[in-house]
């Protein structure tokens, strides 16, 4: 057989891949699979439940109510002059998206070891599917948030949504990228060290307290504010609140820093993911 003619192989398998190697064309080829995983995540979750997708709305609603009572009425944390209910709801809506994607993504390798062990598809498909399936949940919650927004405006609250609303896609994108990056770093590490999984749930809680979800940045003493803003989530959340409610701080430099931080985290995540992806089935 004249093999020198055949240099057009479809698949080549090598022991090591280069460090930073995302085959975007391959992921695009599998876009139908991403759609199906999103469908699977969304539909399968609600089979055999009574309330079904209503949970997407009920859960943040109850959390908001509890926060309003505990942090608003009992602890009396100031909320930048905004109605506490809206303040907490806005924070929760965007935070829930972040924490859902993060938690789901950190479990990518371990939770899907069964399917990864049986068939090949670009592993990155799973985290990407997470981003989109949780996005659907976000949209539902966001819709209800807007309803409440409308209700409060009608009741005469002085909230001022403004032009920054248009930055919502950018904010979502940054949250998605951050949760994706952190999630894949954690999932890459949990293939070897399972105890990190336990840390995730606990860590996400802590992260929420460190971010200005329950309190606005303005309540922090001046010198703390800078450190709090290093948290990439902080500028995004504050901007979100400013855009829809009209109060809060926007610091574009910190936003820019946040963008940079997120990019770095994402790149590190992709590198780690690549390193682990090819052989994790041997150690997971």
């Amino acid at each position: 057989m004249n093999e020198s003619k055949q240099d057009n192989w479809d698949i080549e398998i090598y022991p090591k891949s280069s460090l930073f190697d995302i085959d975007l064309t391959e992921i695009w080829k599998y876009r139908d699979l991403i759609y199906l995983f999103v469908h699977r995540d969304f539909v399968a979750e609600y089979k055999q439940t009574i309330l079904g997708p209503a949970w997407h709305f009920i859960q943040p609603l109850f959390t908001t109510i509890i926060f309003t009572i505990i942090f608003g009425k009992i602890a009396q944390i100031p909320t930048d002059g905004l109605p506490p209910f809206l303040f907490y709801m806005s924070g929760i809506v965007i935070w829930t998206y972040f924490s859902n994607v993060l938690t789901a993504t950190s479990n990518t390798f371990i939770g899907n070891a069964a399917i990864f062990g049986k068939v090949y598809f670009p592993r990155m498909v799973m985290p990407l599917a997470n981003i989109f399936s949780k996005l659907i949940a976000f949209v539902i919650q966001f819709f209800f948030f807007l309803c409440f927004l409308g209700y409060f405006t009608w009741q005469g609250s002085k909230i001022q949504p403004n032009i920054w609303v248009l930055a919502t896609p950018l904010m979502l994108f940054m949250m998605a990228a951050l949760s994706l990056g952190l999630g894949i770093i954690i999932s890459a590490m949990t293939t070897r060290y399972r105890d990190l999984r336990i840390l995730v749930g606990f860590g996400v809680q802590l992260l929420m307290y460190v971010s200005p979800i329950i309190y606005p940045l303005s309540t922090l003493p001046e010198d703390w504010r800078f450190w709090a803003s290093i948290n990439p989530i902080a500028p995004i959340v504050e901007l979100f609140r400013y855009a829809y409610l009209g109060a809060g701080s926007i610091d574009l430099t910190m936003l820019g820093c946040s963008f940079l931080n997120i990019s770095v985290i994402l790149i590190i995540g992709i590198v780690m993911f690549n390193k682990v992806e090819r052989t994790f089935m041997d150690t997971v």
Partner: protein
Amino acid sequence: MSTVIKIENLSKYYRLGLIGGGTLNEDINRWIAKIRGKPDPLLKVGEKDYDNRKDDQIWALKDVNLHVQQGEILGIIGRNGAGKSTLLKILSRITAPTDGRIKIKGRVGSLLEVGTGFHPELTGRENIYLNGAILGMSRNEIAHKLDEIVEFSEMSKFIDTPVKRYSSGMTVRLAFAVAAHLEPEILIVDEVLAVGDAAFQKKCLGKMGDIAKEGRTVLFVSHNMPAIEKLCSRVIILNSGKVFADTIASDALSIYYSSIMSPPKCTLSKRTDRTGTADVKIISFQIKNKAGEALESIRTGQDVIFQFKFESKVKTIKSLDFGFTVRHKFDSILFRNRTVESGLDLISPFPKDGCLDCYIPNFPLTEGTYSFGFRLLVDGVESDYITGAYAAQFDVVEGDFYKTGKITSFAPVLVNHEWKIRPS
């Protein structure tokens, strides 16, 4: 015919034991101890410290070289642990090789385990879409093929029930149906068919044959030897991670069987894997022709004597029940000759050393290698029996059984018969 799979120097090692399978805490402790030059603090008392655990490795595959041509059905056989599944996993990109490279031309569809990609909560129909997409089909392609897939799997009644309710047989029917209709250029099947019933297995093998006729390539791992012989043009044997043999199916199977079935090289008298009182013990075995000369192999149709030399500890015995069973390469029993069934005249007094001869005229087996086992009962009590029933093997070469000058080796057993035609 072009090469569709080119495997060069493929090697894969696995590290044994719980390396880094512990917690972060444990690994940090180990690492700190290593830096300080102290022994591993987490070893159990008495365990040796394998620095870096170099000894705890296993080469699942070592320097495997293989070219597969388009349209071939390649069978891969070997003992458990030979490296077959590892090879398929690497070809399916589930894990990466340690060394070497593989080049593949075409789409690869694998069936490595029952229910690949099935989500228990979704129905069969939804899972077809999911499974198909995982294997690389687009939604249009799947929709097009949906009816064919449901029909092939014979699951039209159950297609809208969640997969968690399926039995394993149902799951594999569905999984195979999807994989087979995927139209991959290369289909890899790993021992999954064992779960299906005989009718379904036949259907799958038929489908695999059709796939190959369409010019696509199939890699088939199985322990079902008759299926391999029927379906595969070429078979490779893997043994401890290396390619042991690479030849046509019938030859490969003979090699495989003789390697696992060959009795130990020591003489019968030294064999210790036997049970019984040893009142009478078989110490050797020989095949002789009618004139009493020892034979290396039997010719079909030859008059032979199976001679069993024995040693006895008893002087008088009332009955001697000796039987030997001859088996074909696939382990099926061909015939058994037993003294109590065909008759044996005992001699008295019973000799201390003697020969038990079995005269078989016109030996009826065709060309091949056969093995046999035996069992001896003295006065109804087991006196000698080699466990595992493989005492020895012998070869048969082709010969003229019917005395017509025509030689055949189609079936293992030849039966004396006569043909006649007459008007009714």
